[in-house]
């Protein structure tokens, strides 16, 4: 008789709280954080080879679905995470900004690869020298292009941010001031 191996799958753990018979009490921030971080809907803004690596990340070998992010949203209104992957030319910059502005709060931005993060090898008149010139970025992934493992790590960093974010952060004057610095109302 073969022994059945214990499953290694870990499901999201309950946050710290007060537990008793028939109830569990924790703060709303933590419960919402767990829900948000495990159901991030990414909007892939893929313009070049980083987008190809992202396709591999989505596909079965690396399987982004394990992180609750298999549902790509091509509508900015329904997306939580803007993933910018590839060279952004200056002519494309207003389009990217419009997509960002159309996303509903809370929203996160992940900049994948050298081009999106800094312009990369394209130090030239026509290329935006990093998307952080026009919008706030939460996580940068280095590489040209980064491997899918790095993308998964970046997604996990975003998950940590989503988990630890307080519900009222987006209403704070600091957050508004930060957006205003980029010229976003």
């Amino acid at each position, binding site marked *: 008789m073969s022994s059945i191996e214990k499953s290694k799958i870990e499901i999201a753990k309950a946050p710290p709280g007060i537990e008793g018979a028939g109830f569990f009490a924790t703060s709303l921030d933590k419960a919402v954080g767990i829900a948000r971080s495990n159901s991030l809907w990414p909007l892939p803004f893929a313009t070049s080879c980083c987008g190809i690596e992202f396709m591999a990340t989505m596909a079965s070998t690396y399987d982004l679905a394990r992180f609750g992010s298999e549902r790509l949203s091509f509508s900015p209104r329904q997306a939580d995470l803007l993933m910018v992957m590839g060279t952004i030319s*200056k*002519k494309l910059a207003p389009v990217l900004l419009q997509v960002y502005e159309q996303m509903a709060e809370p929203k996160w931005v992940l900049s994948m690869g050298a081009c999106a993060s800094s*312009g990369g090898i394209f*130090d*030239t*008149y*026509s*290329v935006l*020298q990093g998307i952080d010139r026009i919008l706030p970025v939460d996580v940068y992934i280095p590489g040209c292009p980064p491997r899918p493992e790095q993308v998964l790590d970046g997604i996990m960093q975003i998950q940590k941010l989503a988990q630890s974010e307080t519900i009222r952060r987006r209403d704070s004057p600091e957050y508004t001031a930060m957006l205003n610095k980029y010229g976003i109302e």
Partner: protein
Amino acid sequence: MDNNSLLTTIQSKLMSQFGNDFLSAELVADYPTFIIKKDRIADVIRFLYDDTELAFQYLTTLATIHYPDNQGQEFAVMYQLHNLPKNYRIRLKIFFSVNDLTVPSITSVFSAANWMERQEYDFFGIQFKDHPNLKRILNMDDMDYHPMRKEYALEDATREDKDDKMFGR
């Protein structure tokens, strides 16, 4: 017809038709190349299109070249024409000064020249006379210079984090 006889045939036709406005003919590598006065380029291309023997009815490409050290002839526009049935290829060139960037448009002969001429306007600031829609095509509309001119650096001017010594600027 080989390239040498193509060269002499076109040379004699252009000479009799355009006289002094036809400047020179030369075989560059294996490519018959003709230099024309700027103001007549549209007429020459129309003539080569309509000529029943030559019938250059396909515009392969059109490009601008900047020679900043060539005093009085800082810019050149180069046209490559093709006769598809007979497989003739020729090149036409015009030279002109940076102070007079007006060039006759050939959009009345080749509709394909529309976007090509817009590109040359975008990158070099060549003013194509009688072009139906001369505005930028590739760069963003609020760009205030013509970036392929050699007096402008290729690199992005807004970067402050790069050391000239290290990055070869």
